């Protein structure tokens, strides 16, 4: 694994009695898309604000690109791009002027700004609309422009706070494609806040799951699926009655059994085999027509983690 670009040690932030971030420790390696997954109000946005040095932590410390978030926030702002909760575009200005503004803020020369704006807008198919006032654009186009703005000064690290929140699936997929191609082309590290599990599964090399300010787990999507021991089998057939379900539930290798649309869904611990269970079903009078094996999706892992934490 490459050097961590973000290092967080026991970071906490409280607002009155509410702990928005609670003893968070985490390392994010360079060159990947890191997904920070959690439900609304989990502390994801506060974490980004802390990492950007916009908020002071109550306890703990964090380093971004080697800069201390408490004392070197100016350096962090200069070396990172950020798309926060809102696109933050000036709607009474043109797309070109919006990018030009952040190029100027980041002390780029006029020629460099022009070349970079053309490069980014062309890549995102927005070049022909560069003179339009941003206020006239669709939400998807605005969000693409906001992503381009984060990259204008070629930062090694960008923060994206739920970039596809409120998008329809088609618009979200389009932005995912743009993000993937931009990230590959620019070689930038991305800290991506999201509660969209499809987004995390599609884009992220590593994922951290947070709930009520606490980090529940961190790892690659594959590792998370493995850590939950979540091997799943779906059995298609007939005659699956309550007796069969109870028999299956009594087996040590079975984590959970449920009926969905007449199919049996069985969660197995670890790498347990399905054969003995199929025999048990058949011997109990069930008719098995098809068996589908698969690993749990990230969504299932996420939901399991949320349930476990609630308990």
């Amino acid at each position, binding site marked *: 694994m490459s050097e961590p670009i973000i290092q967080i040690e026991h970071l906490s932030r409280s607002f009155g009695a509410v702990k928005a971030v609670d003893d968070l420790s985490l390392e994010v390696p360079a060159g990947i898309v890191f997904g920070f997954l959690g439900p609304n109000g989990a502390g994801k946005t506060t974490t980004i604000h802390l990492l950007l040095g*916009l908020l002071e932590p109550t306890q703990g410390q964090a380093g971004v690109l080697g800069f201390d978030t408490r004392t070197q926030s100016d350096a962090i702002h200069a070396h990172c791009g950020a798309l926060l909760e809102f696109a*933050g575009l000036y709607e009474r200005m043109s797309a070109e002027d919006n990018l030009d503004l952040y190029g100027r803020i*980041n002390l780029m020369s006029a020629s460099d700004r022009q070349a970079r704006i053309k490069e980014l807008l062309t890549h995102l198919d927005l070049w022909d609309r560069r003179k339009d006032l941003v206020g006239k654009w669709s939400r998807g186009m605005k969000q693409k422009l906001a992503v381009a703005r984060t990259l204008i000064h070629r930062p090694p690290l960008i923060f994206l706070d739920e970039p596809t929140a409120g998008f329809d699936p088609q618009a979200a997929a389009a932005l995912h494609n743009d993000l993937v191609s931009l990230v590959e082309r620019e070689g930038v590290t991305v800290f991506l806040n999201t509660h969209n599990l499809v987004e995390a599964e599609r884009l992220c090399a590593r994922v951290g799951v947070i709930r009520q300010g606490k980090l529940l787990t961190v790892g690659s999507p594959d590792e998370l699926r493995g850590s939950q021991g979540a091997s799943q089998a779906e059995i298609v057939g007939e005659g699956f009655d309550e007796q069969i379900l109870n028999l299956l539930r009594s087996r040590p290798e079975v984590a959970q059994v449920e009926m969905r649309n007449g199919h049996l869904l069985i969660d197995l611990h670890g790498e347990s085999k399905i054969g003995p269970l199929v025999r048990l079903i058949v011997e109990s009078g069930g008719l098995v027509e098809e068996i589908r094996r698969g690993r749990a999706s990230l969504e299932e892992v996420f939901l399991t983690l949320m349930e476990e934490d609630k308990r």
Partner: protein
Amino acid sequence: MSDLWTMLWKETKDLLFQGGWAAFIRPGIIIAVMGIVLPLQMRSDWFTFSPIEVTLVIFISFFFILNFIGDAIAGEHERHTLETLLASRISDRSILLGKVIVTVGYAWAMVIISLLLGALVLNMTNGTGAWAFYTPVGLLFYLLALSLLTSLLVASGGVLVSLHSATVRQAQQTLILCTLVFGVALGLGLNAAGASLFLALSNNQILLLILAVLAILDAILLGIALASFKRARLILS
């Protein structure tokens, strides 16, 4: 310095050219009234600084800024652009000064254009062929300085109010209230100081005293606004 230039560029684009050329209708009307209609009504009195002219010169820029400055920080908050700006490397000082300088500069430029246009219109229409100008000229410079300092006072106070307001509407309401309170306090203060204070001073001394008091108030309000600009507080609000 480059940060300040960047903010001046941005404010000019965002605040003044909003909505394209339609943005020039309002100042255009004011300049037409101040630079054409009133000079033609007052003819030669316009060159000798009648009380109505002095009042208009000061209050036009005053109310123009009052209209714009509430938008400064509260407007960026409402439009969700402030958070992104705060996450960039631009300095707090440049953000604030950029807003104040552009707003004051715009209002002051309007006053200067109106006065010059008034002189031009009167000279073109007097029919004598003799060139006339404001007299005494020193009073013109005093009037311009007074207009500039008054504009700066409203802009500094306005940006301070805007910093502490959640919406543009709230900022504008607070600003109007503050203006009323300030006006009443000024009247009561002058009354309490009594005529004796002013009788003891020459006209020039009174004018300089007013400019000095305004300059001090400007510096105090701008200083408080700069000290109040806290990124964490703005993010949380």
